[in-house]
């Protein structure tokens, strides 16, 4: 199975997820035609606030959430069309680091059992080498291998998250979805885990889909950024481009709102009364968009390039003030 140079590791096209209607409520389009690529050893950060659809996107890519449209290709294989067995064996290429280190480990399994499980499932290493590989994984994430016989509740939050990362790495995946991997941790622990993730990427050539809401944190980790709102990507580009030249008003609002640990700047920011901007527009407007194109007529996607590899959506622009 040879990959051509232009073949991205992960290729997501028009991915959509619809949550079925509940009594008294309409069906919810949680993810609305999301498309992006991730290359080897690259990190794409998916940022947004609650309800933006970023977590659902991550889970849909991993096929842990049923999608209602679109395609997800990993290493050239269409994940949505695999059989159950085929999908399970594909899982060794894509792993998941969840947010809550306190609940993503089986409370009654020792660390050794937790780390050995993926090895057994995918039969990556012969049975005799499992113990050695488990010790190797512990060292890889900076933990003492002697602690493998302990239970999760005997570790701190930061240590537990390292174990979760070790489990994700057990099968030497190509791609890891990190869903808010450090939000539940203290700030100094956050910095350590982020440093660990980066060093692992350098050593092992891992690709990450890094889902987060903390823009300052994401700056430390991401090569490319996609900003999500109401299930759609509203801006995407290289980190420097998006932080340096935020083109969508929502991106600008997000960046403005991030509290800066600088008293003078922060006081100034808070004392300026910001207009309470409403980002509506769940249905595309008729007529020309803010870039002057009539998408309903031309049938083109609501996406515009504002720089090389830096694009922005013309949806969800607030109406200009009267």
């Amino acid at each position, binding site marked *: 199975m040879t990959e051509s140079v232009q073949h991205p590791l992960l290729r997501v096209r028009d991915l959509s997820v619809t949550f079925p209607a509940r009594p008294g409520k309409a069906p919810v389009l949680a993810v609305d035609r999301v498309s992006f690529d991730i290359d080897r050893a690259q990190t794409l950060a998916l940022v947004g606030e609650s309800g933006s659809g970023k977590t659902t996107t991550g889970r849909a890519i991993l096929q842990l959430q049923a999608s209602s449209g679109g395609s997800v290709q990993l290493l050239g294989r269409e994940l949505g069309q695999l059989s159950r067995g085929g999908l399970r064996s594909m899982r060794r290429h894509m792993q998941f680091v969840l947010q809550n280190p306190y609940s993503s480990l089986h409370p009654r399994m020792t660390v050794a059992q937790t780390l050995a499980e993926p090895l057994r499932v995918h039969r990556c290493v012969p049975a005799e080498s499992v113990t050695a590989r488990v010790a190797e994984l512990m060292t890889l994430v900076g933990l003492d291998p002697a602690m493998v016989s302990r239970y999760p509740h005997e570790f701190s939050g930061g240590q537990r998250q390292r174990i979760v990362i070790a489990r994700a790495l057990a099968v030497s995946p190509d791609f890891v979805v990190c869903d808010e991997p450090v939000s539940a941790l203290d700030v100094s622990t956050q910095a350590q885990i982020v440093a660990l993730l980066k060093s692992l990427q350098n050593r092992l050539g891992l690709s990450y889909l890094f889902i987060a809401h*903390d823009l300052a944190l994401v700056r430390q980790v991401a090569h490319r950024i996609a900003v999500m709102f109401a299930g759609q990507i509203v801006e995407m580009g290289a980190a420097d481009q998006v932080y340096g030249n935020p083109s969508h008003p929502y991106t600008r609002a997000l960046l403005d709102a991030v*509290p800066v640990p600088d008293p003078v700047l922060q006081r100034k920011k808070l004392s300026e009364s910001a207009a*309470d901007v409403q980002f509506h527009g769940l249905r595309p407007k008729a007529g020309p968009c803010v870039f002057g194109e009539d998408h309903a007529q031309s049938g083109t996607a609501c996406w515009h390039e504002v720089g090389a590899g830096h694009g922005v959506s013309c949806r969800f622009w607030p109406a200009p003030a009267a």
Partner: protein
Amino acid sequence: MMSAPAALLQVRGLTAQFNRGDVASQVVKGISFDIGAGESVGFVGESGCGKSVTARALMRLAPEGSSVAWGGTVLFKGQDLLKVEERVMQDIRGRRIAMVFQDPMSSLNPVLTVGAQIEDIVRRHTGASASQARKKSVELLDLVGIRDAARRADDYPHQFSGGMRQRVLIAIAVSCQPDLLIADEPTTALDVTVQAQILRLLMRLRRELGMALMLITHDFGVIAGMVDRVHVMLDGSIVETGTVDALFANPEQAYTQALLAAVPRLDVAGKLA
């Protein structure tokens, strides 16, 4: 302008000991600080440092499910809050000292309308009549920036977004114009765009109502714009104190320096290669 604000609150040697089964742990190990009238003071630190427990000491509230033994003195307008009768404490809570908690979803009663919850507090502390309380509750909802307050007072908590619920909690907290408002991680559970709105609201209310503010958070960005003085806590003790500008510019303690260094900056990119 006064040269030094009168001390509204004087805490000396505050300790808190938790007893769970046969295990006792000292969560707060003898801290002292003042809060002046109208002053804004921040407590910052990582989880487990004791900052939330300190806040609850001022209201003499034990965190759910544990028994706490308090020590030291907490002088509030001449009374030691750790020693007064519970009856006196109940009068002070909500009326003179009010608290806003982190999670708006679990702090509001889901089966009562928002207006009813505010009216309950107003009537309890001021003995107002039903119609007076209703008028006051609509005023308060308006004060905290909830549009269409008269109609929304009859809505239930689940009909509000997270940010609006937090505004409701703040309305409840300031309903009796307390001397001191304690905010324990008031914006942590909220989206970042909503955070800024809530922080601005707190600043505005502080100015308009002349309240003192005790802000507890782990987020240095939040502390930076909101308070005059900062106490950094670690493991139950205050390790550093200073004005907010001085602390951020020149942290003296190694712990404070390490914490500040670990905070990711929006304006500084990490090395990615």
